[in-house]
């Protein structure tokens, strides 16, 4: 079972980053891969168990379920329910921590999943680079834009 881990440091206080990331329906506002997102059945995005249904820029549709949300630990977990990309049993964990030395944010994003035989490398790269590193860079850009 492949495991993907990416982590970075963002030059903003942890509260700023958590305010953006804790919105399970907000990823269409900042992640370049996500075109639009809604929470099913009119639930709020901080209700554990809620499902986000979203479309990627290429039109494909995914559904993900919120498994854990912790304001105490500034962390959340989610799994994929439906996806055209063959990521099976996909569970991801996001966690933030303050860097007290400099008032910055440590951001850790990891997942485990199964893939069809022979596609591990391709899908591991897709998740780690396009989704996670792409997300890190997008948040930096998003914050820079907000300041402007």
């Amino acid at each position: 079972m492949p495991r993907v881990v990416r982590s970075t440091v963002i030059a903003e206080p942890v509260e700023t980053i958590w305010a953006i990331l804790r919105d399970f329906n907000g990823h269409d506002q900042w992640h370049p891969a996500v075109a639009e997102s809604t929470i099913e059945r009119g639930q709020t995005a901080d209700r554990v168990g809620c499902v986000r249904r979203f479309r990627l820029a290429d039109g494909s549709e995914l559904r993900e379920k919120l498994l854990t949300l912790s304001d105490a630990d500034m962390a959340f977990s989610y799994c994929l329910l439906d996806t055209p990309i063959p990521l099976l049993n996909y569970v991801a964990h996001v966690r933030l921590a303050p860097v007290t030395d400099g008032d910055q944010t440590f951001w850790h994003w990891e997942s485990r999943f199964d893939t069809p035989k022979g596609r591990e490398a391709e899908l591991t790269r897709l998740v780690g680079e396009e989704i996670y590193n792409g997300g890190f860079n997008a948040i930096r850009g998003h914050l820079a834009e907000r300041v402007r």
Partner: protein
Amino acid sequence: MARVYISSVIDAPVGRVWERVRDFNGLPRWLPLVRESRIENGEPSDRVGCVRDFRLQNGDRLREQLLALSDYDYFCTYSILESPMPLTAYIATLRLTPITDGDRTFAEWSAEFDCAAELAEELVTNIGQNVFQAGFTALKRQMVA
């Protein structure tokens, strides 16, 4: 219960930082505050349960017991058995996490303890700044060298 939390980014791969901090008897090699240290009963310093008996530059003496050590998760947990500080039930954890972006290290050092309410603020500041932050500042300098 009082709580201390200090974290920092060290510009070196996690393996290198861990190599420096995992030795429970190695404080004099990286923490400027500590003058000398020994492990009681001639035990190896990576034996969980071992006790370090060490002296600070100012002559203060402390004894601390290793409660947990993980080469997999890069953390070390210990308690204070004896110290001149007016506190009890002190348990601390030093934890490293790789930062994949730039192959650096996220270092966290936290502690919880009981003390008289009017002493909490001073103890938290003292431990946080003079021990934990001073340790990270020293590590940052040493890892560049």
